[in-house]
């Protein structure tokens, strides 16, 4: 028996992983699909299910907040991802040329990535507080009355974006750090000897080499940006009104505050489908980028 098990050690070793994936991911995914087409009632100790077909899609067509949440998430993604990519690339490129203090910069610049996002929300919630936040207190010291940054319908979304840039530039920095390290030093030096300016070296030597990394980083960050939840949840909770409503925040409300389990399931399923499309495109592109290297 022991001998037999050992001969099939590869199967024994794979079993926990396969079982975990089936129980923890495949089964819940199937449940999600079932939910999206059902009305689910929560009764003590269990649930009641009744099939409703495409009813939830009809609800969605009438749902103004869902549309706003989707538009906000899209706008948020389109704004923050390019900014974070440019800043992350710039910082990684500069750190790579630095020997003095290089380790210090690297260490500090990845700190936001290690903090719990909810703590990041709290840091900025405290700083941007209308009454006692350091930002408005500093403004007051020079005679300016600061606005309610997070309670203003026009300022709230830009503030959520600003905090996201503070948070996720570190991620782009980390990815590009590996990319810039692979640029042969001699190439830049040779170009400089030939009289190229630092900008020309960056644009004509570094950028072409980094192109596959940039494409992968942009795709990856886009997928992650769609998941945005914790920081706006803490900063604004989606408000004021619907000014910073995001897909995931809205789903959480539908599901766990209004207990519309079936409709929440449909919203989740659609989000997952949109992202899946992204993921599949991403996998194609990153495979091609790997092949090109």
């Amino acid at each position, binding site marked *: 028996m022991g001998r037999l098990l*050992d001969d099939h050690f590869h199967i024994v070793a794979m079993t926990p992983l396969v079982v975990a994936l089936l129980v*923890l991911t495949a089964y819940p995914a199937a449940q999600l699909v079932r939910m999206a087409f059902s009305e689910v009632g929560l009764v003590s100790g269990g649930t009641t299910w009744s099939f409703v077909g495409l009813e939830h899609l009809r609800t969605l067509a009438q749902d103004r907040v869902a549309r706003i949440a989707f538009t906000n998430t899209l706008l948020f993604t389109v704004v923050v991802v390019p900014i974070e990519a440019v800043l992350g690339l710039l910082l990684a490129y500069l750190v790579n040329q630095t020997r003095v203090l290089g380790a210090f910069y690297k260490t500090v610049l990845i700190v936001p990535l290690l903090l719990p996002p*909810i703590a990041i929300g709290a840091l900025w919630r405290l700083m941007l507080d209308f009454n006692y936040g350091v930002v408005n207190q500093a403004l007051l010291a020079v005679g300016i009355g600061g606005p309610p940054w997070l309670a203003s319908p026009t300022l709230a979304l830009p503030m959520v974006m600003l905090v996201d840039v503070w948070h996720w530039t570190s991620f782009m920095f980390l*990815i590009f750090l590996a990319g810039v390290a692979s640029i042969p030093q001699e190439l830049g030096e040779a170009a400089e000897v030939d009289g190229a300016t630092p900008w020309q070296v960056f644009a004509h030597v570094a950028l072409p080499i980094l192109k596959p990394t940039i494409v992968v980083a942009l795709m990856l960050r886009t997928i992650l940006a769609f998941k945005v939840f914790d920081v706006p949840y803490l900063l604004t909770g989606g408000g004021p009104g619907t000014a910073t409503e995001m897909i995931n925040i809205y789903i959480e409300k539908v599901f766990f505050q209004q207990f519309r389990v079936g409709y929440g399931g449909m919203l989740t399923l659609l989000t997952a489908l949109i992202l899946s499309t992204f993921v599949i495109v991403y996998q194609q592109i990153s495979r091609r980028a790997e092949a090109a290297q």
Partner: protein
Amino acid sequence: MRLRPGAIVRHGVLMGAALVTLLPIVFTAVTSLKFRRDIISGRFFDFEVTWVNYQRLFEGSRAVFGQLTVNSLIAGIGSTLLVLAIASLGAYALSRFRLPPRLSALVLGWLLFVYMLPPITFAGPFYLIARQIGLFDTPAVLVIAHAVLTLPFAVWLLQSFFAEIPKELEEAAALDGASRAGTFWRIALPMTLPGLYATGILTFVFSWKDFLFALVLTSTPRGGTIPIGIASFVQEWDLRYGEMAAATMLAAVPAIVLVLFAQRHIIKGMTMGAVKG
């Protein structure tokens, strides 16, 4: 050192970025050491240092952060051990043995797919399942839920670490008559120890950072974690700035410790995790 204009601009930009990164954290650390009156009057420098905000998190009948910290640790350590056990076996099989090609492609593809999906995809079904099996509002449910968050990159990471160690030692062990399980346990696993550290650190950090699953799968301090405690501050009408700042610093402790002591592990692990996953 010869200072060229380029170097000055470069250090100026990098130092600026480092300051922008650190200032919010420093500011919050300072706020956590102030009495309420000094926070309200906006004193930046000449304030009396106090630990009262930290005391209030842990002492007194309404203090919940002791329980929340214990729960965060249970979820973090529990899910890390669970994931390391499952992932190291699976990753070893994937990198060392000839499995049916469809199976390994399916498993790796599905892992990547799961990693990319927003956690909220699993939040709804997990909520229903947790209620059904009676694990709702316990740290145990977070051990399992966090395993879903971290299993994908743990397998990817460990697979690449196993691939780095030379096969010859294992082959020699096999010639000496060692069993395959023994070879894994006594040779492959010890050689991947740095990889296990890096992966374990990251799984712990991901569990520690989670807010969504804790929000959805727990409802009281019995099962809640530190992020839940932080979020509950903003639901109060009167914001308790000092305590909120102290709780935020508490949540930041692992990040600070890791940056000081395990920086190289995490940079390598996170870069690979980020690009692969």
